[in-house]
């Protein structure tokens, strides 16, 4: 907004109140988390310099050292980024497969009671299997490269997509169904024009949860499967072994940021896809 000389009698509110409001809202929204960040950095410094003896300072290097040694040293940081790239690829491919499979399964379950009755318990069982316990088995069967890592991601990301999509498909409004019944609409028309659109918000909720899980799955996979380009999980493991705390912290932050970015991205996609009609949760 351009600041213009205000006519003496003009009410201040008359000057693009919406943009003012938005700026103020952004400031109000960003302020508190930034304050928390400042506090965390402060406590961090305090722990590094006051609580840790110099000899043990490698356990928690001061923040600026993480920045200079972790992010500032190009060779290390480049290695970190390449690791992140490999892990991100696994996470995204795994998520895409989980999304496709999960939605197909959910649609089948919603269309045929017997599919739901026979497979849903197994989907729940899949959820409860301790993934760390079967990761070695996956490596044993599929080798130690890209596809094993991807399978781990699919296994951890599948369940939230199935449950959320199924929930969305099944919680369609009964009166809206009546409209379709009146016109003697077939199953397909019902699915395409009613159930799926009305399930979309829930689908996006599932995608968001699964995106986070898929990143975790990819990093867990990195710890076990070390063939080819090392993922960020293997780097984190290496840095830990070598007591390189600054790059370790940098790698942890970079992977967290990636998870955050993915979460934010799906939030944005949801807003674009269903924001225009899904009941807004917050209204100014």
């Amino acid at each position, binding site marked *: 907004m351009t600041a213009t000389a205000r006519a003496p009698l003009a009410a201040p509110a008359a000057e693009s109140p919406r943009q003012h409001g938005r700026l103020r809202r952004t400031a109000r929204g960003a302020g508190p988390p930034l304050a928390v960040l400042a506090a965390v950095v402060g406590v961090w410094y305090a722990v590094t310099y006051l609580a840790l003896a110099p000899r043990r300072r490698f356990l928690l290097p001061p923040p600026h050292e993480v920045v200079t040694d972790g992010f500032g040293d190009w060779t290390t940081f480049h290695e970190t980024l390449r690791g992140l790239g490999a892990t991100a690829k696994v996470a995204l491919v795994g998520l895409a497969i989980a999304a496709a499979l999960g939605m197909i399964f959910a649609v089948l379950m919603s269309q045929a009671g017997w599919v739901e009755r026979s497979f849903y318990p197994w989907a729940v069982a899949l959820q409860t299997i301790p993934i760390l316990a079967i990761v070695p088995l996956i490596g044993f069967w599929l080798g130690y490269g890209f596809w094993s890592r991807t399978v781990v991601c699919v296994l951890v990301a599948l369940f939230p997509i199935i449950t959320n999509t199924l929930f969305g498909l099944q919680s369609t409004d009964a009166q809206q169904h009546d409209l*379709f019944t009146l016109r003697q609409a077939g199953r397909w028309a019902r699915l395409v024009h009613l159930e799926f659109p*009305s399930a979309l918000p829930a689908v996006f909720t599932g995608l968001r949860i699964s995106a986070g899980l898929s990143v975790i799955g990819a990093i867990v996979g990195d710890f076990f499967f070390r063939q080819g380009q090392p993922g960020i999980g293997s780097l984190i493991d290496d840095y830990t072994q070598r007591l390189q705390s600054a790059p370790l912290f940098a790698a942890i932050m970079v992977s967290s940021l990636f998870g955050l970015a993915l979460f934010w991205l799906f939030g944005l996609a949801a807003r674009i896809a269903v924001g225009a009609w899904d009941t807004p949760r917050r209204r100014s």
Partner: protein
Amino acid sequence: MSPTARLRGRKGETVPLAPGIALAFDDVGKTFSDGTDALRGVSLTVADGEFVTVVGPSGSGKSTLLRIASGLTEPSSGTVAVGPKAPGYVFQDPTLLPWRTVEGNVGLFAQLDRVPKKRRRELVAAAISLTELEGFERHRPTALSGGMRMRVSLARALTVRPSLFLFDEPFGAVDEITRQRLGEEVQRLHARERFAGVFVTHSVVEAVWLASRVVVLSARPGRVLAQVDVPFAYPRPADLRFDAAFGDVARTVSAALQESFT
């Protein structure tokens, strides 16, 4: 209308619908699974092209009556005969699809009936202009007022050409003037399309002005307390409602309605 029609109430049985009849309830009762007695012993006949209005206290089973007529709800007892064609139906709630625009919602039925795109567009435009929703074609339901949503629902129903049309208080959330105009529109539509109409309303004046017969239901469980014939010829002018003769009919309906509350 086809000579054979579905008969609901005894499962799977069909009976011939008497010629010239669009809807026949015989001793229909409805008790919901939670034990609520909504209707008891309702017998009601609506002839082809006849326009009947239904009044009754809140909860007397008016919506239930229409749902049974449409086949959405099964009666617990008695028999219902209706034509095989899907009825037109305006629900008491607008029941719009929130992800569709006004245009998309109005076009839903035509789309489900696989009406070709071009014809569908014409139908939608005509219905939108009839309900005075021009300029809002691209709006989503969340951006409309309650009365406008109800008009979208009405417009959607107007895109089909049924032989039986059910209206469940379609003008409940609409201001007096628009209500009057939409009432005239329904009457014009009825004159043109000659469907049989069943129209639920809480307004005695509206009930008398629209109908050739007013059905008064009792408090729950709903029974037919009275059927009042309305002798005025169509088309009826808007100021008929200020006539003394009109007042007499309205008074009769009102008296029957009073009775239903006691």
